[in-house]
C-alpha cells in the first residue's frame, strides 16, 4: 500500500498529533486516568481506568480541539493470558476536518482516536458511554453479546445478534461450540 511505511521506518515512531493532544488533555484534566498509552505507530491508543472512562469520554467529546463527536466502533478483545477483557473505542470527529498535512502522514493518516479499558475476566463491568454517544448503544450490545463485556448503567443490555438463550459469548477465547442448540446439531457429523 502506498500509505504504509515499511517496518522500522523512522516515521513509524513519530507521535500521532490527535492521540498526543488527547493524551495531554486527559493528563492535564484527569491526572490519574491514564494507565498506559502508545502515541506512535500504525495504531496509537490510550488505555484509561474503567472508572475514569466516562469522564475521559466527555472530555474528548467536549474539547474544542478534538471534538470527538462520534463513537465509530466499540470492540471487545479477550486477553485470556492476562485474564482480562478489553473494550476498545474508536472515536472520530465530523466537526473537525484534518488538515492537508495530516492527510499526508504515514503510517496513520486517518484522524480517529482509540481509547481502551481493561477489566478482569471475572467481573467484566465497563461503564456505558451510550448517553455520551448514542450510537454506542448497539455496539455495546454487540460487544456484550459476542465477547461478554457487561456495560453498566445503561438500559436493557440484551443480546442483539445471537438468540436470547444462546449459551456464553462466542468470541471469548475459551468458548467451545456446543454440539446442539435446541436439539439441532451445530457441528455437522463430518466436522467443520
Amino acid at each position, binding site marked *: *500500500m*502506498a*500509505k*504504509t*511505511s*515499511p*517496518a522500522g521506518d523512522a516515521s513509524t515512531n513519530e507521535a500521532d498529533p490527535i492521540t498526543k493532544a488527547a493524551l495531554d488533555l486527559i493528563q492535564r484534566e484527569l491526572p490519574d486516568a491514564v494507565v498506559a498509552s502508545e502515541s506512535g*505507530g*500504525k*495504531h496509537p*491508543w490510550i488505555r484509561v481506568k474503567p472508572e475514569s472512562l466516562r469522564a475521559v469520554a466527555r472530555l474528548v467529546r467536549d474539547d474544542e480541539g478534538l471534538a470527538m*463527536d*462520534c*463513537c*465509530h*466502533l466499540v*470492540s471487545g*478483545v*479477550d486477553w485470556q493470558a492476562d485474564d482480562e477483557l478489553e473494550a*476498545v473505542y*474508536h472515536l472520530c470527529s*465530523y*466537526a473537525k*476536518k*484534518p488538515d492537508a498535512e495530516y*492527510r499526508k502522514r504515514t*503510517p496513520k*493518516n*486517518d*484522524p*480517529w482516536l*482509540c481509547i481502551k479499558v481493561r477489566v478482569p475476566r471475572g467481573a467484566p463491568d465497563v461503564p456505558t458511554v451510550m448517553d455520551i*454517544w*448514542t*450510537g454506542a*448503544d*448497539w*455496539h455495546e450490545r*454487540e460487544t456484550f453479546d*459476542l465477547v461478554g463485556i457487561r456495560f453498566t448503567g445503561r438500559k436493557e443490555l440484551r*443480546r*442483539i*445478534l*445471537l*438468540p436470547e438463550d444462546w449459551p456464553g459469548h*462466542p*468470541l471469548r477465547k475459551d468458548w467451545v461450540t456446543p454440539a446442539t442448540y435446541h436439539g439441532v446439531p451445530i457441528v455437522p457429523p463430518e466436522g467443520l
Partner: protein
Amino acid sequence: MSTNGRSTALTPSEAEPAHELHERQLLVGRDLRTEEMVLNIGPQHPATHGVLRVVIKTDGEIVRALQPHVGNLHRCAEKIGESVPYYQWVPYVDRMDYLAAMCNEHVACMAIEQLGDIQIPERAEYIRVIVAEVQRILSHLMAIGVYGLDLGAFTPFLHQFRERERGMDLLDHISGGRLLYHYVRIGGVKRDLSRDWLDELDAFLAAVEKRLPEYNLLLMENRIFQERTCGIGVIDRDTAVRWGVTGPGLRAAGVDWDLRRDAPYSVYDRFDFDVPHGESGIAGVLGDCFQRHWIRAKEVEQSVRIVRQALAQMPEGPVMANLPKSFRPAAGEVYVRGENPRGELACYFVSEGKDTAYRCRCRGPSYSNIAVITEVAEGVLIADLVALIGSMDIVLGEVDR
C-alpha cells in the same frame, strides 16, 4: 368485495377529500390517543430490504415506538476471521455487504496489508479504485431503483437493471462472479484488465451518464415521489453524528465529509471529484429522505468522473505483489476505514504474530445507519416508515455480518 364498503356507501359529495382525512387522523393521533397496537413487520417483508424485523407500537397510523430486531443473517464473520488465515477470510468479506463486495474487499485487503506492511503495485491501486467505483455505481443504481419500488414506482426499478446488468457483466468478466467476486486480494488484484474490458467499461460509463438523468426525471422530478420523501424521516446533523450514521445519510444531513477526500486511502488523493452534501436545491429539507436519494444520484456522477480519471492516469506494471506463501504479520493492531456506498466500513485487526488474526472486528455502516431509526421513526406514519427504512439503503448481510 363488500357492497357496504366505504366507497359505495358515501356519495362523492359526502366523501371527505383525502388530504382532510389525512390531517384529521394526525390530529386524533396527537390529541386523542386511540388504543395502541403492536405490529410486527418482517423479517420477510419486501419493505424491510432483507431480513429485518421491526416491532412497532402504533396509534392508528402513527408509529409511537419502534424496535428493530436484527441478527437473522448472522454468519459469524468475525469468529471465522479469527479461525482462518487472513487470505482465506477475504471471500467472507464479500458476503457482508453483498451489493458492494468490491468495496468490502478493498477495505479488508487494505487493513490486512497495513497490518503486514505490504506494499502493492501502483497499477493494482488504480484497478482497485476503478472496480470499487463501478461497484458504487451499481450499488447506488440498485438503491435508487429499489427506493422507487418502495414508494410504488415500479418503472425505474426495472430500467435501472438494464445498466446494472451491464455493470455486473463487467465485474463478472474480470472476476468470474456476478455478485461476489474475490477479485481484490491481499497484495493486489487477481488479474489485469484487458483492452476489451476497458472498451466495455467505456460503453458502460457512457450508458450510465446517458440514463441517469432519465431516472432522476422519473423519480426526483416526480410530484408523487417528492410528496412521499420531502420532509419525511428527517435526520439532522446532530442526530446523524451522535448515532454514527455515515455515507449518504451523513452527507444528506449537511456534513461535508467523505473519507475518499478527507482521509484519502489508496490513490483517491490523485483524483478531482466533488462531495455532494446538504440540500439538493430541488425539493425537501436538509436530512430528509429526498436528500439521501439525491446524494446517491449525485455520487453516481462523481464515481463516473473518478473512473475516467483513474483510466487516464493508470500506469502499466504488475498487479500483484510478491508475497511469501505463509503470511504472518508482526504482532500489532490496525484500524482501517473506507468509504463504501452505504457509509464507512472499518476493519480492526489485532495480530499476535500468527497466520490467523487474534481479533477481527468489522464495522458495517448499515449497522449504525439502521440503529438511528429507533429515534427518528417516532411519530411518523407507517407508510413513511417504509420510506425512511428504504432511504437508509441498508443491507442486512452487513448489519448482521
